[in-house]
């Protein structure tokens, strides 16, 4: 019944790990061919792989794990998916209903544990209710602001026979509002017509809304000529090669993007949530602007930043209406003022905040990414990352032309996300070039998934920028904690080439800038999983940077400015 429900929901791939409490489901999985099951090596990997699958396809990712430890291991992935609004359906086994509460073997209060880290969850106690709950789970996970859901199924419910109900066009009371309010939309259009210094600030909501939303965004940007910046989560919704692109904003965002946010008079937030990595100091955030906020989740509005023009609705629907209204009112903008605004932006751009010099015989991590970009950008390419400096450099130096091409753990910042995510992406796009830009410390957190990559012959490329440090931790210790590098040194690292070979994969090591291009080409052309150990400068810091507790216009651009910049108040922030 469970497998039938998955098939009826259009599922073709599930990620999972069997165990005592899900044996009946796995028995069903064994007896069919419609759904492919990917055996991971750790349940956390299953959820991240499903996230990678979901982000790169726009379809929900599905996970099956057992009770107790299977469920608790999935918690990090669930929280990650909740923070980044990724639709995931996790099916967990549970001890039989008559044993619940008896501290049975591998029993855990799964719905209790996962209540705060799922959008919704269910414990199904009757087999007849099972198919309805499963269909509802898909509905809740994908409608409105997407998110992870969990269905806990006791083993006796799995064994029993019940009536299967096919999915019905929604009977659910959960029907989030997708159309924006026309009065508010008109107010926004009026503000756009008058704005002298407008900026679009876009986020993951554009990508979650589907490819059509990205198309509409591009149309709107082109038609108005306004500059656009994006959060980490929204990269790719507007092309990096686009004329109006300012680059990413935020703590490690680009100078021109953050300065534009600070000085603008109209800030149009499309599907982003004023995260603290974006706003910096709240009371100094974009002080002169009228703020519009488009979000499908009413709780995002006014949560952090007071909004002047709130629009609750799906980004795609709202953008369509904005374009309609704007066109019907005569396609007006204050083009003279906007041209002047662009002159200012060009001055900021001229500072070239990502500038670095590759000299000597040590590879700069930025250089490694510039070369990676150059050699892979023409490929059908998907990029995942782990979390840390390499993640920020990847966001800065790689260009994303399309949505759903960039998978990174933004909200939760989960080290160990990228590798399993790359497996999920490669499952969904078998012929694409899938690269996980990693740091050696993050990568080791879920390295057991090498077994999965080799087993399913998934040619995922693990591009490890190895500085033998927890680079971002080291950077903060340098800037904030008097250069006392407490526990941020990765001692006793494995030989990554031998590690790859031990799993039956290919390992490449590169330490010389002159060899880099050839080594990257070798990685790309190898038909199979590769661990690329790129030994980089060990003490490189990630700039530009807005220090904690500072405003957008107080950005640091490079090494020279970093002495004593974060005051004691800022140092308590994370």
């Amino acid at each position, binding site marked *: 019944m469970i497998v039938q429900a998955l098939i009826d929901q259009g599922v073709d791939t599930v990620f999972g790990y069997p165990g005592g409490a899900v044996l009946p489901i796995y028995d069903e999985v064994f007896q069919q061919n419609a759904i492919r099951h990917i055996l991971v090596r750790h349940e956390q990997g299953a959820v991240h792989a499903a996230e990678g699958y979901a982000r790169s396809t726009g379809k929900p990712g599905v996970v099956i794990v057992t009770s107790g430890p299977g469920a608790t291991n999935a918690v990090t992935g669930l929280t990650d998916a909740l923070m980044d609004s990724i639709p995931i359906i996790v099916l967990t086994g549970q001890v039989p209903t008559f044993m619940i509460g008896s501290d049975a073997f591998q029993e855990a209060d799964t*719905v*209790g544990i996962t*209540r*705060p880290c799922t*959008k*919704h969850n269910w*414990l199904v106690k009757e087999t007849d209710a099972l198919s309805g709950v499963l269909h509802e789970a898909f509905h*809740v996970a994908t409608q409105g602001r997407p998110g992870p859901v969990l269905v806990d199924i006791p083993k006796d419910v799995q064994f029993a026979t019940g009536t299967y109900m096919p999915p019905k066009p929604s009977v659910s*009371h*959960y029907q989030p*509002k997708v159309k*924006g*309010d026309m009065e*508010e939309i008109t107010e926004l259009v009026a503000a756009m017509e008058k704005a002298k210094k407008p900026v679009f600030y876009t986020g993951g909501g554009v990508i979650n809304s589907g490819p059509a939303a990205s198309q509409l965004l591009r149309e709107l940007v082109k038609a108005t000529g306004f500059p656009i910046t994006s959060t980490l989560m929204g990269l790719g919704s507007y092309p990096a090669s686009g004329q109006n692109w300012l680059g990413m904003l935020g703590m490690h965002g680009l100078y021109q993007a953050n300065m534009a946010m600070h000085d603008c008079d109209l800030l149009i937030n499309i599907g982003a949530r004023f995260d603290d990595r974006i706003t910096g100091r709240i009371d100094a955030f974009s002080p002169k602007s009228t703020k519009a906020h488009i979000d499908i*989740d*009413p*709780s995002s*509005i*006014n*949560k952090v930043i*007071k*909004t002047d023009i*709130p*629009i*609750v609705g799906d980004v795609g629907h709202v953008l369509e209406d904005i374009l309609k209204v704007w066109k019907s009112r005569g396609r007006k903008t204050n083009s003279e003022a906007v041209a002047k605004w662009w002159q200012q932006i060009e001055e900021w751009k001229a500072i070239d905040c990502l500038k670095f010099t590759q000299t000597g015989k040590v590879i700069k991590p930025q250089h490694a990414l510039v070369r990676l970009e150059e050699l892979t950008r023409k490929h059908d390419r998907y990029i995942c990352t782990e979390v840390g400096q390499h993640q920020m450099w990847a966001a800065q130096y790689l260009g994303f032309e399309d949505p759903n091409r960039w998978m990174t753990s933004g909200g939760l910042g989960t080290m160990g996300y990228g590798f399993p995510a790359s497996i999920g992406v490669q499952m969904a796009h078998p012929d694409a070039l899938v690269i996980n830009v990693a740091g050696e410390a993050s990568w080791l957190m879920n390295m057991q998934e090498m077994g999965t990559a080799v087993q399913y012959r998934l040619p995922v490329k693990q591009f490890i920028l190895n500085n033998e440090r927890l680079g971002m931790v080291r950077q903060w210790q340098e800037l904030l904690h008097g250069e006392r590098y407490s526990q941020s040194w990765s001692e006793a690292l494995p030989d990554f080439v031998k590690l790859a070979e031990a799993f039956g994969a290919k390992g490449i090591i590169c330490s010389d800038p002159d060899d880099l291009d050839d080594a990257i080409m070798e990685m790309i052309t190898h038909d199979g999983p590769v661990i690329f150990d790129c030994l980089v400068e060990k003490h490189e810091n990630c700039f530009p940077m807005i220090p904690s507790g500072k405003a957008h216009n107080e950005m640091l651009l490079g090494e020279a400015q970093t002495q004593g910049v974060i005051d004691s108040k800022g140092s308590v922030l994370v």
Partner: protein
Amino acid sequence: MSALKIKKGATSHSAYNLRPTFSDVEERHTLAVLVENEPGVLARVIGLFSGRGYNIDSLTVAEVDHTGHLSRITIVTSGTPQVIEQIKAQLGRIVTVHDVHDLTVEGASVERELAMFKVSGTGDKRVEALRLADIFRARVVDSTLESFIFEITGAPDKIDAFADLMRPLGLSDVARTGVAALSRGE
């Protein structure tokens, strides 16, 4: 829904109500939350309050519509207007929450609470307690030679006032239900 005396369309589905004028003054609000009556729904609501650091001054919950499978949770909470707006929006996000009403801002409403007070004492104090109970229209629901249990219903301040009067007269135990509230009129 009309049977439950709740007006349609309050916080979660209209953009208009999302424009509060912020101030830093803490306000007390009474929220009526209509939820699906299913296991765990109260835990979701309470978990939201504890997880996000909101206050609960009082909370009552009971099934109000058996056929519709609905329960009504009445929460009295306090916070700045921005926090109150967030609480309502966050409650509205919970999948099993059907509706959130802020009775404090949605026109006039009636708030009632039931309480039981055990007052122990003899002689004049005992007589005085009985006399005051009469003034407050509290009923005696249990009596021994040394104690009374009074049952009283009313707005929370009336119950507070009664408690203040009973304290010097030998108040030994209190049980309060928390606030139940409905909006007035249609």
